């Protein structure tokens, strides 16, 4: 790959956008995937999980889901943790998400509307609930 300039990047973006609007009717975002990126998440491999989400969503052609980062979600023991909130499914926090699990979440949850049951944590830890935070 030759070194891209910002103009190249802009062109690539326009091409992608064009392809996307041809495929879809321009609907808004269907949901958001939030990846924990505190010390615990980073140490447990959040970066690889982030890469796996990007790659698998690209492969699956999913463009109506946002990806965000947050700090520690209070579930350090089950990092990397990933929260998936989509309009048509229950909000779920997944724990112990390695790269393969991330790919499963994309294929099953985001594309197939099926929960990845063996990685679900249904609520944040107690110290966070008490403060009324998520």
């Amino acid at each position, binding site marked *: 790959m030759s*070194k891209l300039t910002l103009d190249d*990047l802009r062109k690539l*973006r326009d091409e992608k956008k064009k392809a996307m609007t041809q495929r879809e009717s321009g609907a808004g975002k269907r949901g958001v995937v939030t990846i924990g990126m505190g010390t615990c998440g980073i140490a447990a491999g959040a*970066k690889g999980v982030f890469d796996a989400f*990007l790659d698998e969503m690209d492969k699956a052609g999913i463009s109506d889901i946002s990806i965000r980062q947050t700090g520690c979600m209070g579930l350090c023991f089950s990092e990397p943790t990933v929260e998936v909130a989509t309009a048509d499914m229950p909000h779920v926090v997944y724990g112990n998400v390695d790269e393969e699990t991330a790919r499963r979440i994309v294929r099953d949850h985001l594309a197939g509307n099926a929960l990845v049951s063996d990685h679900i944590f249904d609520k944040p830890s107690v110290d966070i609930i008490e403060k009324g935070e998520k």
Partner: protein
Amino acid sequence: MHATLCDLMMDLVQNSVEANATEIELTLTQAQGKVEFSVKDNGNGMSKETQDKAVDPFYSDGKKHAHRRVGLGLPFLLQTADAVGGKATILSEEGRGTLIQFCAEAKHVDLPPVGNVASAATMMLSQPLAGDLKIVRSTDVDSYTLTRGMLADVLGDLNDAQNLTLMKTYIESQEENLEKTGTSYE
């Protein structure tokens, strides 16, 4: 201890974000046989007393998680510096911001690898941030600079998966170019 230097940098940048910084600058330099990085922010900063406590792994300010008894970000950095005969410094002033610097010999056998700069940078740059994040990456012979503002201007929504993939591709090409220009760290 974090597996890569990128992980350490991500951790420090995350600290800056949580300290309500609006201007964050990360530099990563591999030159003259050394690896150096720094994170400078204009966030809340820390008093001298808090700085002393922040290097203790069994200290957390308790603001985010009330019952948390550990805070490993800065201790990991100091531990890494210590393990490789390097240097990590923390300069901070309450209300003004924080500057953290790390320097080590690139060839030290215990120095963690730099890691995947493109994916770490993509993650850092796409974080929710009220202001701007600037990343300056350089080697002996070449350098490149990324800012969140510049990338948001070109790409638009930085939480869009396709845009993030493009951003990563862009940064990968800058990294490849650095490698091609002939600096070897091995």
